[in-house]
């Protein structure tokens, strides 16, 4: 993705994450992909479960979700598998919402949010046991 693509995506998603969510947005998301994490892409709940299974996620493992938005699917994977998750993205607005959701669901202790570009992540090598990204490279 070019710098211009990244800037445009950041502007677009910052605006969308700042718009707030309502019963209608939640209901639309549940209907389309079967979740309510504020997702707006194409990874369904079943596909997220498949990701968790293929990656062998479980308590004690640390997952990195690149381009996590409002927390989908990383937050969901942490909730359902018991792993810890670091959520990264550039619009901080989405990450704030993700942390709010983790706090409300009672597992904030396993969630870290970091506003960072995917091309310059601030982590040491071999920090994570698994990495996911959903419709980010495109």
């Amino acid at each position, binding site marked *: 993705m070019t710098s211009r*693509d990244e800037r445009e995506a950041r502007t677009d998603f910052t605006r969308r994450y700042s*718009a707030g969510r309502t019963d*209608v947005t939640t209901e639309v998301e549940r209907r389309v*992909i079967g979740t309510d994490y504020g997702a707006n892409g*194409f990874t*369904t709940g079943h596909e997220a479960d498949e990701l968790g299974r293929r990656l062998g996620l479980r308590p004690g493992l640390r997952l990195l979700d690149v381009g996590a938005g409002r927390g989908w699917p990383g937050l969901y994977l942490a909730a359902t598998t018991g792993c810890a998750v670091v959520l990264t993205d550039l619009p901080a607005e989405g990450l704030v919402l993700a942390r709010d959701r983790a706090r409300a669901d009672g597992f904030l202790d396993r969630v870290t949010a970091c506003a960072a570009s995917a091309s310059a992540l601030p982590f040491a090598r071999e920090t994570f046991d698994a990495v996911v990204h959903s*419709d980010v*490279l495109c």
Partner: protein
Amino acid sequence: MTIHVAPGLTARDRREAVHAGPRAVTSRHGQATLLSRAGFEDVAQVDVSASYTRTLGAWIEATDENFDALAALEPPGDLAQRQTDRRVHLAAAKRGLLRRSLLVGHKPVRAS
């Protein structure tokens, strides 16, 4: 999980796919190759294009049905434009110009 241009397209269809797809959908190499070059092994690629096409259609339909309520949350014109873009995207996906894949790779375990 990544959307990508279908392999083996004519130059014209490739241009249409790039135009219709999400930002930066094109790459010089296939997704599995990119993972391999990044050092991942045993790269498995599963085509999930059917699910992707269904989901994209569902976003369009559900958004149309709740358009006024959803549009009120965004700047004027944003949602209408996104729906227009989605329809172009869906047409390309239905034609097979855009695909979506689940790719999983593993980093080799270093000997201690």
